[in-house]
């Protein structure tokens, strides 16, 4: 049986919560329209829009239940949702429910009565009924041709990441190795990290530092993706790399680094390039993602995947620019959160169109435009220093930690951070979100939360493989860790929730 989860932006969850839990302490209702994504670990609903049901359309039921969303409101929502190509959800509240909630008999009867028609009305896309408690949610998904399935969890993503379930999850004791961290955020916080899947794109100077930190923090599952090979010039900054690693894939070095630190961590070391669809899809099971690469195309791909599949993340980088006389002009270190609700990397100017265009031109075409190239038409290498990488990655990992365990105050801005070492100054960089942005905008054409309902605008297939490496190919290219983790997760869910599934 396929596992179903959901993801909703914090701003949409807040609007939904405000609608469902009103001062009258009565039940209220709303529709949600969602994109869909299917991966090895299951299927996920990506909420794109919340549509409150007006009180005059949520009336006493004439079918023996407590309340009724009138047929006209249902028809309107189904038509609108269908036109957008999205999947329909409807939600109501049980105001007396707090940390645990479940469907009543009438609720389930409503699903039987209405969902088959709603599936027809939305061209066979899944239809979901939800019931919310103050801090809990239960859901039942009806997919064409399948038995109804319960929703495992609903993830709220924003300043703080929160997971809603039908009832509180049991918290186990944290391992002794995390004792000093547990003093900060408790065993529940440590368990949150253990149950998270975090992706790191780029296993070079920044990526290796992130893998090391995430492992030390106790993140249970790390997906690290890169197509590069360690060369001698990397030894100054790839954490975990030694002279004997020259010629090895960077992801293999990252894998070994992490598993030496924590033998229980699951690491998917993926040879790949997220500019390609198949490689980018390796990120889709991540709860959070980091980008630590040095090209614009991967920033575009990261921005696209994060927004289309509602995966929050952070982009890191450091830049040293030389002056005309050959001296250092400027050193700056950047950390850009991708919150999915604020200005994205494109709105922030981090994906310049000319640079993106140039990267994808042939060397000859680039030369014809008078761009400055190296002797063989390749891009010029830029300086890269471990201490600078450490600053950006540490800022990013700390933001991640606070968001993951819900310690980021709501009033804290998550604008990009820029550190200027020569001035010893940390500044934030404001960016304005463009309403018609194709990534983060609210327009119909934006990719936000569309999931698999829109093909990824990336290169088809996967990056061609290379015949190098001591690591067995099966371990590199197959999601061995993810499959095992998915199996273990389902076993844990069944143990916790018993007869619900």
């Amino acid at each position: 049986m396929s596992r179903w989860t959901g993801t909703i932006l914090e701003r949409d969850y807040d609007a939904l919560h405000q609608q469902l839990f009103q001062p009258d302490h009565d039940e209220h209702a709303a529709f949600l329209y969602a994109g869909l994504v299917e991966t090895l670990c299951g299927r996920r609903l990506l909420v794109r829009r919340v549509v409150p049901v007006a009180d005059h359309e949520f009336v006493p039921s004439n079918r023996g239940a407590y309340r009724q969303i009138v047929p006209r409101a249902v028809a309107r929502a189904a038509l609108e949702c269908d036109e957008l190509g999205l999947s329909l959800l409807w939600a109501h509240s049980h105001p007396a429910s707090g940390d645990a909630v479940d469907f009543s008999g009438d609720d389930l009867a409503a699903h039987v009565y209405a969902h088959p028609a709603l599936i027809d009305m939305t061209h066979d896309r899944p239809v979901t009924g939800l019931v919310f408690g103050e801090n809990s949610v239960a859901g039942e998904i009806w997919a064409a041709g399948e038995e109804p399935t319960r929703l495992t969890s609903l993830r709220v993503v924003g300043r703080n990441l929160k997971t809603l379930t039908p009832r509180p999850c049991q918290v186990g004791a944290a391992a002794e190795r995390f004792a000093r961290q547990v003093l900060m955020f408790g065993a529940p916080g440590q368990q949150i990290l253990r149950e998270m899947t975090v992706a790191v794109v780029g296993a070079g100077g920044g990526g290796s530092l992130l893998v090391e930190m995430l492992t030390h923090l106790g993140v249970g599952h790390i997906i690290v993706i890169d197509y590069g090979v360690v060369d001698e010039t990397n030894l100054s900054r790839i954490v975990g790399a030694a002279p004997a690693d020259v010629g090895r894939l960077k992801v293999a070095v990252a894998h070994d680094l992490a598993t030496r630190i924590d033998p229980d961590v699951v690491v998917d070391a993926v040879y790949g390039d997220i500019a390609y669809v198949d490689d980018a899809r390796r990120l889709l099971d991540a709860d959070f993602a980091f980008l630590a690469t040095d090209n614009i195309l991967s920033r575009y791909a990261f921005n696209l995947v994060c927004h289309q599949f509602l995966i929050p993340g952070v982009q890191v980088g450091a830049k040293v620019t030389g002056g005309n006389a050959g001296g250092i002009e400027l050193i700056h270190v950047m950390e850009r959160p991708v919150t999915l609700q604020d200005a994205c990397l494109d709105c922030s100017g981090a994906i310049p169109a000319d640079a993106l265009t140039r990267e994808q031109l042939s060397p000859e075409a680039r030369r014809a435009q008078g761009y400055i190239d190296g002797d063989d038409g390749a891009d010029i290498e830029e300086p890269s220093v471990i201490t600078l990488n450490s600053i950006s990655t540490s800022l990013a990992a700390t933001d991640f930690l606070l968001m993951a365990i819900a310690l980021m105050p709501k009033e804290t801005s998550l604008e990009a951070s820029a550190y200027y070492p020569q001035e010893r100054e940390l500044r934030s960089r404001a960016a304005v979100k463009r309403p018609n942005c194709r990534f983060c905008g609210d327009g119909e054409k934006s990719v936000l939360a569309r999931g698999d309902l829109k093909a990824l605008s990336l290169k088809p297939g996967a990056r061609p493989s290379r015949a190098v490496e001591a690591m067995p190919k099966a371990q590199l290219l197959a999601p061995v860790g993810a499959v095992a983790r998915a199996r273990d997760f389902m076993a844990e869910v069944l143990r916790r929730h018993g007869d619900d599934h």
Partner: protein
Amino acid sequence: MTEEQADALANVKATFTEHVVDHEEAADGGLLVIVRQVVIGDGWNPALIDLAVKLQVTFPSSMPYPFYCAPGLARIDGQTFSQVQPNVDIGASVMRTQISLTVQGQLQFDTANETLGSRFVAVIAWLRSPR
């Protein structure tokens, strides 16, 4: 092709209703859009070209730039323009005339104010009155 490329192709077809508009999908996800038999004026040899642009898979985040036509495009009077390079190897030894034009120097493609059709129109207008 991507949804964005398909929309742009449809826009070019709607803009150039009196021309044949062809397309070719590239292995890297790019889409070559070709407007056939465009009159660019007797000052050029040839005066009639098939004008093309390759939309990268990242379009419209990347620009529709540069434009191309058959190799060897030249002014009758011998005048040269840096924006027009008649013999460029665009890869795999395929030779083309490369026409490197932006709109008012803007190094972006602003979908709020431009379409691919309008970009083609702007390039053709420049070719008819090169400066």
